[in-house]
């Protein structure tokens, strides 16, 4: 069974999604909850095992259909993939717990869609094949479209219209890009692409560049790269709470794809195709960060704040990609884990605030108090500390890593100010948000809504990762760095150049 371990993160949610549509699970909320809980736990276990495997071995491949790469589709487990899988497992586990407090019953098919969403995300993390990446993108997208509208409501529908239509256009560009890629590389396996990049015909170079840059558009759209990021805040802010929290990892899929394709395939070893995206990423990532900061300061609700923070973190992450060194990638990886989990926690907290504050929801205005000020305020305070980047929580390590990754040359002159200012902006808006939401209350609460133990557990679970990331910061930064080196130096297991092709048999 263990030789199939790499496939588990995709297979488990797929099977779960299927069985949730069939008797005896279909139609029974409690059974569905328990089933998904168990699957999530299994996903956690497999992710841990995969991480262990990636630490002990060279990157492992799982060849679908037993066809050798580059002909068959390869799933690849290296350190980077394993870390991302663990991240998605932790996030999925916590978010699902939260959803089980009642959000899951606000519309049909929440649980299977949740599983399919995880399947898509995990598949995107695992696949070593660029077209298969497209397929998993589509899986995670269609699942996200469906989850986005969970619970219904005007604003949600409006957000969905924007999100869906824009992403559909994005998918079209993905396919244009893939067309060019196949037309020039003649292969779909990413390692094979990396191998062939340096040996491309000179007449194909410009074409391959166009293809690679079209993929930059697609990944940039997912990763919230300016000017493609505008869809994000309203989409995240308007969807249901657990879905928004789960979406915290969606931009990271874009970042991850940029690593896989633009750092590895079109990376240093790419000959004339080396680093094609870097020149574009530099100014745009900076601009993303700046635009994110501005939007952050303009936030009027807690969910919007959380969503704008996602943009800010996207800007920072994109900068690490633009820096294009293993150190920067390692910094990005650490920061990615931190920002994903903490943003998710913040979304969940915002959900509770929204519910308890009645009409004012999560707007930054004076209103009736929340029913559990100490509890929610405390959780908020922790999340805020982490996201602002203040000690003792993980944000500060991420911030230091980012600053250090910029080196001390001219790069730093560009990167430091926005990174530091983003911290200040976050501090300003968080202190405004926190003092308003939890302290600036008048009257008495008009509802009896209190947080469900599962919701609190989920949030605490997410928040606990932050101190853990600091306490075991040494091990984690080491891991990030070796994952980054693996990505930069030996992109993926190298494939035999061209296997012997058997004679054609009619």
């Amino acid at each position, binding site marked *: 069974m263990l030789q199939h371990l790499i496939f588990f993160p995709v297979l488990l949610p797929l099977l779960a999604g299927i069985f949730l549509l069939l008797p005896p699970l279909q139609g029974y909320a409690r059974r569905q909850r328990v089933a998904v809980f168990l699957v999530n736990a299994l996903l956690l276990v497999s992710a841990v095992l995969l991480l262990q495997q990636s630490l002990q071995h060279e990157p492992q491949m799982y060849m679908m259909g037993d066809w050798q790469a580059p002909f068959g589709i390869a799933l690849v487990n290296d350190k980077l993939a394993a870390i991302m899988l663990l991240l998605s497992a932790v996030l999925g586990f916590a978010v699902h717990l939260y959803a089980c407090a009642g959000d899951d019953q606000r519309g049909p098919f929440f649980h299977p869609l949740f599983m399919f969403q995880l399947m898509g995300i995990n598949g995107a993390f695992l696949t070593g094949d660029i077209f298969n990446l497209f397929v998993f993108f*589509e899986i995670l997208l269609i699942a996200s479209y469906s989850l986005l509208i969970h619970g219904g409501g005007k604003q949600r529908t409006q957000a969905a219209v924007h999100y869906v*239509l824009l992403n559909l*256009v994005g998918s079209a560009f993905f396919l*244009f890009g893939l067309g060019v890629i196949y037309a020039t590389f003649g292969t779909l396996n990413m390692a094979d692409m990396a191998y062939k990049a340096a040996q491309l015909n000179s007449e194909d170079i410009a074409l391959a560049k166009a293809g690679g840059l079209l993929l930059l558009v697609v990944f940039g759209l997912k990763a919230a790269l300016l000017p493609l990021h505008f869809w994000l805040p309203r989409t995240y802010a308007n969807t249901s709470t657990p879905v928004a929290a789960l979406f915290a990892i969606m931009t990271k899929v874009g970042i991850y794809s940029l690593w896989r394709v633009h750092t590895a395939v079109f990376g240093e070893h790419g000959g004339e195709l080396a680093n094609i995206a870097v020149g574009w990423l530099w100014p745009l990532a900076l601009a993303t960060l700046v635009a994110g900061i501005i939007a952050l300061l303009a936030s009027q609700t807690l969910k919007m704040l959380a969503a704008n923070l996602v943009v800010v973190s996207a800007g920072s992450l994109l900068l690490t990609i633009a820096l294009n060194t293993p150190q920067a990638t390692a910094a990005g990886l650490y920061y990615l884990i931190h920002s994903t989990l903490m943003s998710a926690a913040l979304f969940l907290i915002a959900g509770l605030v929204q519910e308890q504050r009645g009409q004012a929801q999560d707007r930054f205005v004076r209103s009736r108090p929340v029913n559990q000020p100490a509890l929610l305020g405390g959780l908020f305070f922790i999340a805020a500390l982490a996201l602002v980047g203040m000690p003792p929580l993980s944000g500060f390590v991420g911030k230091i890593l980012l600053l250090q990754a910029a080196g001390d040359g001219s790069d730093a002159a560009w990167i430091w100010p926005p990174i530091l200012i983003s911290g200040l902006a976050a501090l300003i808006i968080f202190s405004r948000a926190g003092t308003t939401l939890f302290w600036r209350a008048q009257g008495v609460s008009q509802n009896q809504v209190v947080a469900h133990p599962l919701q609190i557990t989920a949030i605490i679970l997410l928040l606990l990762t932050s101190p853990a990331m600091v306490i075991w910061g040494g091990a984690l930064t080491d891991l990030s760095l070796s994952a980054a080196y693996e990505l930069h130096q030996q992109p993926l297991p190298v494939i035999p150049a061209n296997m012997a092709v058997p004679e054609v048999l009619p």
Partner: protein
Amino acid sequence: METIYAICVGIMTAGGVFLVLRGYTFAVVLGLTLLSYAVNLFLFASGRLVVNGAAILGESEVYADPLPQALVLTAIVIGFAMTAFALILALRARADLGNDQVDGDND
């Protein structure tokens, strides 16, 4: 022939993009459909054009590249699913927002 093919793809893309930039969901979905035709032809073209060479073993002498065909097939199916979703979403928006403009009430 390649020239004509490319011109067709270009025009379909242009038409699709133009429609996608409209302000009404129906036009946008129509544009997406047009765009996906263009995309499929484009992706198909990555295997180059071959006449009378279907990749059915024994049926032809020269085989067209079968891989892009398989990819296009996948893309067609996914495109269908996506178009369907987008269309129904347009309906939902019409039901919830009272009109069929992509940005709701504000123009």
